[in-house]
């Protein structure tokens, strides 16, 4: 899979530069870092659709023993009868590149790190586009990830096992629930034949809301 040009303004925003920059040196570095990142990345994603049911503990994924515990996943998936479970990664090459740059050129490392953050979002968006060309529903929720609200991060292990993520795209999770390769995402989207409430997206459901640097400066991350 080839990455599209990376949204540099998004990367700049991650770097704390919300209005873009006209600094020539920075722009030149962004360009060269993008080239390096595109060379190092081998983006992959993977998804599957599962029926769900609602239990006292949370949302149960059919044909498995996995329960999305807590109230926030249940609220997010209200009115849904299925979910699309997906995961995506930029691959290990990006981790190698980041390690190398952190030794030889820290400024570039920081820029590549931000560009990679923007890139994995783009890959998720692309996956979503493909998914909804193939999977039909009347309405759907936005992408929801472990760690949001009261959905525990340790569900990541079960979700990635269910998707056979290691075997199929080389994505694993550490005991500390950190994914490796590090530039990776796990998420699910609720599907409904009725209507879903999409209004809940925003800072209130985010577990970073008390320490978010975007909120501190009066903005938000855009999700």
């Amino acid at each position, binding site marked *: 899979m080839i990455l599209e040009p990376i949204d540099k303004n998004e990367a700049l925003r991650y770097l704390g*530069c919300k209005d873009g920059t006209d600094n020539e*040196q920075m722009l030149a570095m962004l360009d060269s870092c993008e080239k390096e990142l595109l060379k190092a990345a081998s983006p992959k994603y993977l998804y599957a659709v599962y029926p769900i049911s609602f239990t006292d503990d949370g949302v149960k994924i059919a044909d498995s023993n996995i329960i999305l515990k807590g109230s926030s996943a249940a609220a997010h998936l209200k009115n849904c009868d299925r979910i699309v479970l997906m995961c995506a990664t930029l691959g290990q090459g990006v981790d190698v590149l980041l*390690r*190398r740059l*952190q*030794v030889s050129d*820290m400024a570039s490392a920081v*820029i590549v790190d931000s560009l990679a953050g923007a890139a994995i979002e783009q890959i998720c968006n692309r996956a979503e586009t493909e998914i909804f060309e193939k999977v039909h529903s009347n309405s759907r929720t936005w992408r929801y990830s472990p760690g949001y609200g009261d959905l525990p991060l340790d569900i990541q292990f079960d979700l990635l096992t269910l998707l056979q993520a290691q*075997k199929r795209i080389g994505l694993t999770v*550490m005991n500390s629930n950190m994914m490796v390769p590090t530039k990776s995402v796990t998420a699910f989207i609720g599907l409904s034949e009725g209507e879903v409430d999409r209004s809940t997206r925003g800072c209130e459901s985010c577990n970073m809301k008390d320490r978010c640097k975007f909120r501190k400066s009066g903005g938000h991350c855009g999700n």
Partner: protein
Amino acid sequence: MEIKTLLEQRGLLIFDGAMGTQLQAKGLKTGETPELLNLTAKDLLKEIHRSYIDAGADIISANTFGANSYKLSHSGKSVDEIITAGIVNCKEAIKESDKDVLCALDIGPIGQLLEPTGSLKFEEAYDIFKEEIVAGYKAGADVVLFETMTDLYELKAAILAAKENSDLPIICSMTFEENGRTFTGCPAEAEILLCEGLGVSAVGVNCSLGPKELMPIITTLCEKSKIPVIVMPNAGLPDPATGEYSIDAEEFSEYAVEIAKLGAGIIGGCCGTTPEFIRRTADKVKGRKYEPKSIERVCTICSGTNVVEVSQPRIIGERINPTGKKLFKQALINDDIDYILGQAIEQVNAGADILDVNVGLPDIDEKAMMIKAVKSIQGVTNVPLQIDSTIPEVLEAALRVYNGKPMVNSVNGEEESLKNVLPLVKKYGAAVVGLTLDKDGIPPKAEQRVAIAEKIIKRCEEIGIPKEDIAIDCLTLTASAEQLAVNETLKAVRAVKERFGVRTVLGVSNISFGLPNRELLNHIFLTMALENGLDLPIINPNVAAMTGAVRAFKLLKAIDVNSVEYIAAYGSDTPTAVAKPKSSDVTLEYAIDNGLKADAAKITEQLLIDTDPMVIINERLIPALDKTGTLFEQGKIFLPQLILSAGVAQSCFDVIKAHLAKNNSETVSKGKIVLATVKGDVHDIGKNIVKVLLENYGYTVIDLGKDVEYQAVVDAAKKHEVKLVGLSALMTTTLKSMEETIKLIHDNGLTCKVVVGGAVLTPEYAEKIGADFYAKDAKETVDIAKKVIG
């Protein structure tokens, strides 16, 4: 029984097909642990095994693929229990069939990525595999099968565990993507080199793709491997929405015929294949005469992702070696691994194909440092390494943790050396450099050196090290001391190459020792040596003339066909046009503001002529850095710019350090600070930014890296008597580790202060877990360091 013997006796062997696919067809839920069925559904498993035996399989795999301690950790069952049951089921099915079928202990990846990308240590991976091997061996498995592997490093841990804890034949199979590489970037050739070197019985590919898509990989395997090739494709490609595979049993078996013709020795199936696939395949190819291709290979070594064939001159970078380098020695004493990594990256960027790694220094634990250096270097570059030590114990430690097939530097003609080094080279499947000296030293005449080379080659062959893995070093003597010896060296190089057909290696730079304009002599001697048959010059690749000589030689000898490499190296020599003022107008402050490293270094050199280093640091560098720091706080510049400025200051500091080292003065340091990214956390970019900034304010940072044990932080804080410890964590789940680390610091009665930072931290939380300070960014950490240390 050895696989090769079996192939000679029975002809082409058939492996079984998918287990998971069969279990799911019988009602196993997705995401459940299939190995638990070994205890609860014995009959079902025996029935599946039996159906593959009846289909014609010569080897069947027990249901033990994921039976490792990590994957079973939530199951309440032990590895021994599950594996024993799996092997017993398999053996019983074989016994009931009354056929001569072998039972394979089937072992897949652990499920966690190894260091450096993941946190699982090589040694831990070894122990996990060892537990599986011990259980399977005891239960009576006939063969060990490692399959669906994607990381060569993990595979190496697995093979070592199997070899050191059983005497069973080992079969290895990796999973490749359509680009010919695994997820970790490993090509099939690297798999072959590792497996052959470690004495594996068969090597190959399984899963991920169907037989059609795998043909290029299978062709490579059959054309490059000296050991039998195993192939177990999927039943084509799965439909992403339905999960159904694209080809049927008949089509699969037709591909099997093609695969057999290519020279493969063992054929089976992976995901989506059924007993019917195996039956049709067996009907067509089972027992067919095994006809592997005959393989000729020149010396080839590899890292986990990069194969280097010494079929033409290859540059070995010599800079990772403390001999005669004060800064390097200082770095070793301070455990400053980043210094070594910087040397590695610089040489690779300059054109090194292989890096020599020598960290021998009397005052340090060379073995521990060698392990750390090898692991770290292979995390940031992909060139193969040459392990350089005079101590066999150090060599062995490095050979174990090396990812791929390395070169060992070196063995010599002395009995003691041959006896100690060659068994290690053989065991770990490395290539080796043989020095043409013995107990009487370096003989003066070429013929005498050739005789020692002959002895070394003979001894290698006796112990089973193939000739292709030998490189002979005829030794460069210093021209200023032994002018006539120069020609003897060149004569010996030519003779060794022509007579024995082995590779040749020379440390080039020694030629000019004690003479002026060393670069000129090195350069000319290198060219002369290349013309006499030198394959592996050990040089400083950062000197443009040296790397250039090799590139030019390759072009002029028509090795670099169509001058491709030469043009790639020099064709785009157009300077990037960034508007900047005339050099004479650039001040230190301007250079720091604008990221001009080279200018800043030059200015610092000039200042040092008549200015005290501490004055430069305190009155020029730090105020300039403070200014960019303030601009950063005000949001007028952003993070990369702040770091760029810091990088410029770093280059000034490097100049000052080199100046002080030259004058044997005390080093400049405002004090030591320990930094660590806490246990369980591998995202350490934030900590590394802090490190860069602290160093540029003159602090010495003891960087413990990422995923750091609690005790390691305490030990470092004690050892270096630091006043400040900095801890970072990225995730809510690893904040617990931060708390534990702080608690242990306090429990040990250390008086140092602790500063914490990281994306999910808040000042309130920092206080709650007992930290003395919370830093919101790198700049604030510097302010805190100033407060605590001064």
